[in-house]
């Protein structure tokens, strides 16, 4: 059966670089511990995706931001940057569609192979994806005909099962058309570091801290305090109510 990839406890450190105008980041260094969900917030164009990209490629002063990423307080080896078999990072990007002209099953098997995993994991990915989306994905479907919600659910399940990495980067899960809280819990797993770019109040408040971006720079870090946690519980209730309403309408029923 599948090889169990043990999650190595590790810390992720982002050392500050510069913003779009070359001014130093307001946050000179931030260390993120295993099990922590950390948010990245800020207006469009403020550099959120750039920060995610810096982490994904383990920048070492070679990206426009000049930031450095450390793992366990050390610069990671070059092969950890690129070799998918040893990759420490799984990423859910903003892309909502697949371009590959392959069947769902063939693609997932090939992806498992590229990560050094058992190709039979493809079945589990599809089963999991189908718990997140209303329209079931069939293994024989061509990837390119999947809807946005189906693609997104498949990408999430693929990250949870095949790209089972200790660091998970998520760029705007709220655009998904899938059950976002369940998706986030699935992705977070046990003891993973989750970095999530978000405009969604509920996801932002689910994080223990959030990095605030402005003009390409990391300006400050806000810890979610007790007041915010109270607000989170209200938002969660509201979101549950909206989700139930959405489901009622989807099922062609009348809202009571």
């Amino acid at each position, binding site marked *: 059966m599948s090889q169990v990839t043990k999650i190595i406890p590790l810390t992720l450190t982002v050392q500050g670089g510069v913003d779009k105008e070359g001014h130093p980041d307001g946050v000179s260094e931030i260390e993120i511990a295993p099990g922590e969900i950390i948010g990245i917030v800020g207006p469009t164009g403020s550099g959120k995706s*750039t920060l995610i*990209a810096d982490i994904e*490629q383990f920048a070492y002063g*070679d*990206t*426009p931001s000049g930031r450095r990423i450390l793992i366990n307080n050390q610069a990671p080896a070059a092969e950890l940057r*690129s070799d*998918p078999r040893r990759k420490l990072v*799984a*990423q*859910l*990007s903003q*892309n909502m569609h*697949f*371009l*590959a*002209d*392959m069947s769902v099953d063939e*693609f997932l098997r*090939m*992806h498992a*192979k*590229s*990560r050094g995993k058992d190709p039979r994991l493809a079945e589990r990915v599809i089963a999991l994806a189908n718990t997140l989306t209303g329209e079931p994905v069939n293994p024989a479907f061509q990837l390119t005909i999947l809807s946005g919600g189906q693609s997104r659910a498949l*990408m999430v399940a*693929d*990250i949870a099962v*095949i*790209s089972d990495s200790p660091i998970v980067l998520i760029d705007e899960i709220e655009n998904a058309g899938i059950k976002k809280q369940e998706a986030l819990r699935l992705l977070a797993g046990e003891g993973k570091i989750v970095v999530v770019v978000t405009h969604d109040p509920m996801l932002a408040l689910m994080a223990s801290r959030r990095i605030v971006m402005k003009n390409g720079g990391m300006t400050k870090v806000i810890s979610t305090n007790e007041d915010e946690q109270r607000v989170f519980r209200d938002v969660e209730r509201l979101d549950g109510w909206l989700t139930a309403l959405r489901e009622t309408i989807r099922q062609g029923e009348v809202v009571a």
Partner: protein
Amino acid sequence: MKMVVVAGTPGSGKTSVLMHAVKDLLRSGRSPAVVKIDCMWTEDDARFKRLQVPVAVGLAKDMCPDHYAIYNFDEMLEWAAAQGADIMLNETAGLCLRCAPYPDKALAICVIDVTTGPNSPLKVGPLLTTADAAVMTKGDLVSQAEREVFRERILEANPGCRIIEANGLSGKGSAELAQLMAGWPDISGEMVLRHNPPLAICTLCTGELRIAKEHHRGVLRHLDGFMEYTGE
């Protein structure tokens, strides 16, 4: 003198990736010179000139652009040396997938666009299979899973090649690429092609692998546009 040949299909991002690498080379104290080969027309030289590096353009016109590049490699190297360059970067026109205009001692780079789908590495042929490095572009337009499947397909086509994920817009990967260029051994002595060109009408078309002009016959076009027939 080091020599780098950058090949890849049109629109794959060769020029953008190369421009970022040129900036990195300049920052590390190198002196690159760029020769852009195209078929009918190009304005890429203007883009390179903005980086204040020596740029030459060769238009192949009626000659196969890859054959044209191969035929003129020694002239390009002489030109680059006269400009005081220590790295000659040749960007090919990128049309035919059958030719691989890679001399054995040059660093051969194949730029390949991820959005063309995971079957494309199997279609590219010697352009990819005989390259030293494959540069994957436009990876930001697909999911991580798709990038990784694409990477696996590149390795199926060319198991030994170095893969660099680059982004022509943000400059991602260019530092790694520039490092690879700067660390490549200097060219020396006679060079031969890594792969035979397809059959057609000049000596290159009939399988000549040697680079120097004296080995070639047929209707041939020089870098300066002069065309001549050499032969019996």
